[in-house]
């Protein structure tokens, strides 16, 4: 389609025209290349040096297949019975809701105090660093730490889960707050409104939909964590039943039943989250 005359004029007399580059060396390209390359190298190294403790992998996979078959194709309530398991499930759901509420209330307060567009830099930075440290410690370790002081049980579980929730939601909420248009805040500030009035009249309504989204995401995470704390810290609930069934009595039929219960609850939580988010987005 090129004009042939033009082509002849453009072609240099040298035997080969210079190579046309398609892209320049850019930092972002190089970075992607380096990061992917090193991740793959690390993976290769790890996988070839993986300690399998002398287990024959092929036999182990066969064993796993039998276990999965028992779990998912022949689930039953086992020796504990349906009522006990449902009760344990309910208490785990309750635990996750309770800790999400605590996390949301404190998380919002800290988020307001930590957001760059609202508070002074030192307070904000202090809170952000503290929350980053709290977040870095896994929930299960928080629960174990509190269980030394309060004893194994609900209080330790509630505190352990709440701590991580507060730190997580502080970060999520304050990112939402920092995304607010400056003028929204300023327009109320110039009316002489007090700080917390601005917060609840201007900021809260603007970001309520995203707050609700984050809170429900955290609820789902807390449900998973409540199971983990129940299992690894012996804090009760469906997690503990799961641990006993799969790690002590080796009743994989019951394990499967519990897993199905858990999946049902997560689907329900997801469904409710979608519905409530729709309500808040449509308003």
């Amino acid at each position, binding site marked *: 389609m090129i004009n042939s005359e033009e082509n002849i004029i453009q072609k240099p007399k040298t035997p080969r025209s210079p190579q046309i580059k398609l892209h320049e060396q850019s930092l*972002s390209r190089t*970075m*992607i290349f380096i*990061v992917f390359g090193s*991740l793959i190298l*690390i*993976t290769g*190294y*790890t996988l070839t040096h*993986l*300690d*399998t*403790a002398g*287990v024959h*992998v092929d036999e*182990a996979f066969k*064993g*796993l297949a039998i276990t*999965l078959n028992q779990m998912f194709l022949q689930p039953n309530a086992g020796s504990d019975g349906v009522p006990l398991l449902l009760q344990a499930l*309910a*208490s785990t759901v*309750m*635990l996750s*809701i*309770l800790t999400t*509420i605590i996390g949301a209330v404190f998380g919002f307060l800290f988020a307001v105090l930590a957001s760059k567009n609202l508070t002074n830099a030192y307070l904000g930075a202090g809170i952000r660093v503290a929350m*980053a*440290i709290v*977040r*870095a*410690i*896994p*929930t*299960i*370790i928080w629960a*174990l*730490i509190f269980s*030394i*002081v*309060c004893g194994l049980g*609900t*209080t330790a579980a*509630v*505190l352990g889960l709440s701590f991580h929730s507060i730190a997580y939601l502080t970060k999520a909420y304050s990112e939402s707050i920092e995304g607010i248009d400056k003028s929204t805040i300023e327009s109320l500030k110039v009316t002489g409104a007090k700080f917390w009035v601005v917060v609840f009249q201007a900021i809260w309504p603007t970001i309520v939909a995203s707050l609700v989204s984050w809170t429900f995401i955290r609820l789902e995470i807390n449900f*998973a964590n409540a199971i*983990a704390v129940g*299992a*690894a810290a012996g804090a009760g609930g469906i*997690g503990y039943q799961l*641990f006993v069934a*799969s*790690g002590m009595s*080796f009743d*994989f039929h019951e*394990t499967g039943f519990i*897993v199905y219960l*858990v*999946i049902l609850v*997560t*689907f329900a939580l997801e469904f409710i989250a979608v519905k409530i988010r729709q309500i808040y987005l449509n308003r």
Partner: protein
Amino acid sequence: MMQSPKKYLAHKGWHQTAVIALIGGIYVFGSWALNFNSVDGFIAVPKAFAWLGIYFRPTAHSMEYLPKIWQKLIQTVLLAISSTVVAAIVSIFVALLGSKVTGINSFVQTIVRGVASFFRNIPLVAWSMILLFSFKQSDFTGFLALLLMSIGYLIRAFMEIIEDEASETMLALKATGASYFQVIFQAVLPQILPSILSWILYMIENNVRDATLVGILTGTGIGFIFDIYYKSFRFDAAGMTVLAIIIVVIALETISNQIRRVIL
């Protein structure tokens, strides 16, 4: 809205009160059902930190645990990285098959969605325990547990990325007469690579934390060593372990954020 402004505000006020009352009610009921005393709980927090300050503080003596802790921590990070990378490789193929934009057909899409959310919602505890039963106490068990969990998360994340970011360019290249694989490699992958990498980094951070739980349950990595110190009341060493975890997680987070800033 057809209501009068006054009525609307009154309705809104009523609505707010109702929501607050509902949440408060759930809180009170939950505390009662779980036998959780808010006051006791609140008091326990400063008590716990005071206790941490005395017993959990690493001493000069606990420095001797450091090489062991460090070795286990590195091992845990390596496991977190390798499980995430393998999961990402599997997930990108599955996500390409299952996304609405690049997928084969609606039947496959539904299957992929179902399988991904099934994998994601099986508790990590369950994966750890059934894998422990077959693969015994080994790094491989920890690796598999993290792998299976990550696959569920990454498939969903990657599908959303493809649907959000690649549908328009996909259409443009299809219109030039390019074949399916050309479109995937020339339009879809270059477009989504940074977001994919960002998710992989996030998943690595998350897996380091989750590896602690898996470690406690399956006796591997940093979780195992924390559990040992904790159960044998060597709290200064346990404190040292927690400190090491904090440093590594925050370091990973900082590095990831720097990488994200460059690539996005």
